[in-house]
């Protein structure tokens, strides 16, 4: 357990070395909310406005989730950099078990995402509304599970790609697929409607339904805005994503790196 704490310390120290970069990213996210979301509010089709009431309120939970996604994904960039500079050889030579090491990395990626996301979530609560204490518990749990899954996914990608270019390309594909095939930016009901009308491929509708970013955003919306309605399936969806990628990351970390 102590060794996991050392890994957390190591990764958090590296995270805060980029503090000005983080401040820049948070500012950009807030600009998305306070400029883009407000302007979009006036651009929307009245039919959509009827469904979501205010795009600002609709987008604020999604923004917290995208912030979490981007920051939890940063651990993958560091792991990839370590691999390219062969720092992973040092990390793997340390007196600690591989499982402790892999868990430490996934956990630190997830926790760093939570730290980054907290001002965005707080902004969301201040401007959209506060959840009850049990609802807050569920939101934190779901976001933490999501952060762990994202961290695991990014680590698995980082150790599976040989160069930074490949990692950045793979990261871009995952980013765009998960971001834009989700209900982060637009309501799932609209995606579903477009699918039924044949204007959007049905497999992408299915993907958006199971996308953990959709489910995490919609859980927050369910508690703060009342729509869509909350269901346990949403939590299960995020949990399954988290479990798969946390285990996948641990496995990939141990196996792929040891290949030399």
């Amino acid at each position, binding site marked *: 357990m102590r060794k996991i704490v050392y890994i957390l310390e190591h990764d958090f120290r590296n995270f805060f070395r980029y503090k000005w970069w983080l401040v820049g990213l948070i500012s950009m996210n807030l600009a998305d909310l306070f400029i883009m979301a407000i302007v979009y509010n006036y651009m929307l089709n009245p039919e959509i406005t009827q469904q979501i009431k205010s795009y600002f309120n609709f987008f604020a939970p999604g923004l917290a989730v995208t912030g979490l996604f981007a920051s939890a994904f940063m651990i993958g960039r560091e792991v990839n950099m370590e691999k390219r500079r*062969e720092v992973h050889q040092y990390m*793997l030579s340390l007196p600690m078990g*591989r499982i402790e090491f892999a868990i430490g990395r996934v956990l630190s990626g997830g926790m760093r995402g939570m730290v980054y996301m907290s001002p965005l979530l707080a902004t969301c609560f201040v401007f959209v509304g506060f959840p009850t204490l049990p609802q807050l518990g569920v939101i934190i749990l779901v976001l933490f599970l999501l952060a762990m899954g994202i961290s695991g996914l990014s680590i698995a990608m980082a150790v599976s790609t040989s160069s930074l270019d490949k990692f950045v390309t793979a990261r871009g594909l995952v980013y765009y697929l998960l971001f834009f095939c989700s209900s982060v930016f637009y309501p799932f009901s609209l995606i579903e409607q477009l699918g039924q009308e044949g204007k959007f491929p049905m497999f992408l509708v299915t993907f958006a339904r199971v996308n953990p970013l959709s489910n995490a955003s919609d859980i927050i919306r369910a508690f703060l805005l009342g729509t869509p309605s909350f269901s346990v399936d949403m939590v299960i969806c995020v949990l399954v994503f988290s479990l798969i990628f946390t285990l996948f990351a641990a496995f990939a970390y141990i196996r792929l790196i040891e290949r030399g």
Partner: protein
Amino acid sequence: MPAIIRMENLTKKFGNFVAVDHLNLEVEEGEILGLLGPNGAGKTTTILMLATVIRPTEGTAYVRDYDVRKNPDKVRELLGIAFQEPKMLWVSTPWDIVNWHAKVCGLSTSERKQRVKEVLEALDMWDYRRRNVHALSGGMRKRVELAKVLIQRPKIAIVDEPTAQIDIVGKHKIWRMLKELCEQGTTMILATNELYEADVLSDRVAIMHKGKLLVCDTPKKLKDSIVGGDVVEIQFEADPSPKIVEKLKQFKEVVKVVKSKSSMLRLYLNKVEEVVPKIMGVLMKDGASVSSIRMSEPSLDDVFAHYTGLTLEEAQKEGG
């Protein structure tokens, strides 16, 4: 001394390339084993397998009877490594790197504070402890890498080219520190392609080439293993008589006598330190007038050339 590390047919292949080829080698407890060879000889790959960073393709190694394949966690508890290329992210500082390493290796807070300061001061890095690694020179980064092992004081230390990029004064200082570490009970594997470093530090030297172990023995025995490897040049005031040449040839240690320049004999022999007094005795008895004598022992480069047919420099070029 019992063997603390045993490598049994240790092999690593990367695709079709055999980096380490059925290596059988033992490291005795308390000794400094020099692992000598050009770049690409397989030294670093061997080290990475011992450190359980990469898995052997065939064979295995035992560190204090723990199999690197089956008990990697136990093996890592015994080892400390200073890598060839400093392994650190460039946004870190020397203090953070060494302090965190000490923490992971189980040093208490008070012990850690004291030792981090001591080691960084000893390596002349204390004034640079808060600088980012990217602002440090190659030699400074190397010192930080070495600080990890010095602060850890592991049961077995593996140092890979510890003084590469370090100035000559620094080299001597580091050699002294490594020797002190061993005097405190650490067994050491010193991977190097610097012959002098291997010679002055190692109790035994294992020479590797193209992934294979060529020979392993004490530096002295390795040098003595070259028949006629020692050279004595005797400059006479006048041409030496055939009788003297004949007498010199009769020493069993003398392999060859060559008249190189006028009034100079070059003798190729073994055990120079034992034979030269005897030669002097013969020359004095025969009343030969000698103006100078120059002796030279074979170097480890000669030993390497003897076993590979290449100088270390040539092998380096060959290995890329």
